[in-house]
């Protein structure tokens, strides 16, 4: 039973929430704004969980997640437009088809970018992904086919109540699917290979792991789900514009993932919390004070990161550990030395452009150490 709870908690919670909310919506108990918020949260969850595949599990920094989302949004959105004009309407099959094609398109781009780019590590990979996102944005922005600067209008789901619920249900299913797939990949031998590469790439190679294959696998899976999030987004906003998907959006997703502690469940919670807070503060504060929300967000972000990471605050943290308090409340018997399958520390993500390991494929030629015939070392040990 405990094992079941541990493994299936997130599905159970989200699944039952989705069912309850759908029923509530169907009887008209939910206002439109709440529905919009729920859709936003669903998109944020899919984005965060899929980005975590790259950041938390592959240990690489990606700043181009919005680029993959952009591809999904435009490909799926365009397909939806074409289908609805040729079929004269939108039904569930067109949505599913748009999701599949959008996700596959994003995955294909992930493959094309990942194949050469994953030779790079750390910040260099981050820069290439950032560049990719900006290239996608720039090209789509100027493409007549995708509606250039005015954006792309997608079939309107908000006017028709039953359509909107269909979209909402599909969103919930996509969220569950994302969590299901990524959780299952990570808790399998493939996931172990991916986390092994993160922890020590050189050892992973020596242990027989095909590093390129697994890195690509992680990257493509992540891109596919970003694409799905994009298709959902294109349905939920009716009009998409490429400017939305700039690197700032990628960074926002990254912040969600990092604040969530780079685990699947953490990403889900942090995605919901941050989306909800953003939304509520925006509507509650209103007007000029709404920008104060960004200020508070920035301050909280800085303080939280410093509190959690500053070496000088270590003793303070250990004394009054708020994070541990949370763990103590929900899992009283938890032994800190026994860890879950997706445990990860912040420092596994190599964000500095470490000159020593930029190129993962030929880092290792060494002319200084043990291999050099240094005359001064003659007769060194013993």
């Amino acid at each position, binding site marked *: 039973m405990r094992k079941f709870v541990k493994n299936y908690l997130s599905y159970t919670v989200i699944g039952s929430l989705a069912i309850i909310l759908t029923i509530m919506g169907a009887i008209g108990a939910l206002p439109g704004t709440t529905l919009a918020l729920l859709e936003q949260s669903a998109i944020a969850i899919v984005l965060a969980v899929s980005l975590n595949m790259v950041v938390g599990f592959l240990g690489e920094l990606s700043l181009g997640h919005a680029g993959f989302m952009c591809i999904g949004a435009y490909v799926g959105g365009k397909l939806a437009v074409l289908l609805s004009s040729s079929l004269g309407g939108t039904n569930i099959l067109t949505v599913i088809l748009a999701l599949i094609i959008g996700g596959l398109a994003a995955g294909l781009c992930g493959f094309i970018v990942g194949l050469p780019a994953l030779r790079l590590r750390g910040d260099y990979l981050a820069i290439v992904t950032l560049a990719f996102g900006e290239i996608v944005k720039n090209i789509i922005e100027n493409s007549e086919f995708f509606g250039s600067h005015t954006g792309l209008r997608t079939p309107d789901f908000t006017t028709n109540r039953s359509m909107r619920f269909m979209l909402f249900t599909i969103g919930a299913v996509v969220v569950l699917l994302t969590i299901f797939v990524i959780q299952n990949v990570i808790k399998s031998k493939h996931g172990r290979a991916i986390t092994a590469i993160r922890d020590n790439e050189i050892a992973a190679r020596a242990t027989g792991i095909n590093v390129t294959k697994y890195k690509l696998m992680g990257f493509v899976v992540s891109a596919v789900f970003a694409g799905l999030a994009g298709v959902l987004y294109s349905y939920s906003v009716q009009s998409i514009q490429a400017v939305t998907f700039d*690197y700032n959006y990628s960074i926002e997703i990254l912040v969600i993932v990092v604040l969530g502690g780079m685990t699947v469940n953490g990403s889900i919670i942090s995605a919901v919390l941050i989306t909800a807070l953003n939304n509520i503060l925006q509507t509650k504060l209103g007007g000029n004070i709404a920008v104060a929300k960004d*200020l508070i967000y920035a301050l909280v972000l800085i303080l939280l990161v*410093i509190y959690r990471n500053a070496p000088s605050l270590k003793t303070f943290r250990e004394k009054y550990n708020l994070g541990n308090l949370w763990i103590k409340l929900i899992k009283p018997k938890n032994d800190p030395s026994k860890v879950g399958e997706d445990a990860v520390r912040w420092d596994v993500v190599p964000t500095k452009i470490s000159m020593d390991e930029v190129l993962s494929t030929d880092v290792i030629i*060494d002319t200084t150490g043990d291999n050099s015939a240094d005359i001064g070392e003659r007769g060194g040990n013993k």
Partner: protein
Amino acid sequence: MKFLETLINGFSIGGIYAMIALGYTMVYGIAKMLNFAHGDIIMVGAYVIILFLPINPVVSIIAAIVLCALLGITIEKIAYKPLRGASPLAVLITAIGVSYLLQSLAQIIFGPNPKSNNLFEKLFPKFLESHRGGIIAIGSFNIKLSTIITLACVALVMIGLTLFVKRTKIGRAMVAVSEDKGAAQLMGINVNKIIMITFAIGSALAALASTLMMLDGQTVNFTMGSLPGIKAFTAAVIGGIGSIPGAMLGGIVLGLIECFAQMAGLGDYAVAIEFSILIIVLLVKPTGILGKKRREKV
């Protein structure tokens, strides 16, 4: 003529990118962190100029440079210094937080609408009377005065900075810290001071860059630093991050690409072209054109 004009424009825009890229590269080389907030220092510099412009244009420029240098130091002290020795990801996220903070502060104080500026008019009122739009025409060849000033400034900064790093004690200490922080400390170099100076110089250069951008008539708003910042960052990486000549080269390469793309009628795709070149350079030589490569030992 068109070609020559494009070339000169490329050098001037590239020079501005190079100036910003120097800030990224120096901070990277010495503090080993990506300062994502660097682009927003440009924006702060621009608002300082707008604030002080009614008093005197020269005063406003000096105020911008000094205040930005101070801001750089303050940010380093408050946000980055406590995290020295923490995981690089934490530092990166903090830098992102600082960037958000500066942007939202600017938005609260100055409002979201872009402000036009009249720095050029205030600085050279007489010149504008004799030359329409600040353009000097030599036959069919047109050049803006602001472009000439930019080129001169960039050349001065590059020469000055190179001399500073090569000839002065502090400059050499900077090189030492970027090579090996621990060893530099053992040699009696005050690493904290060097990092502080690096942030001050980088931020001052960003303020200078924003002055040059405003001379060219750039409007000021709270996100104005993002795109030049990210492009300068690209320039720093193309040239080889951590390398000062690399940042200069990268900036100019980027400026030339941008202007020639515009000349070829591909102005809309300038961003895509620039970033594609970045990707190609990185894939072929991951440390950038002038970057150094070190290897990991097995």
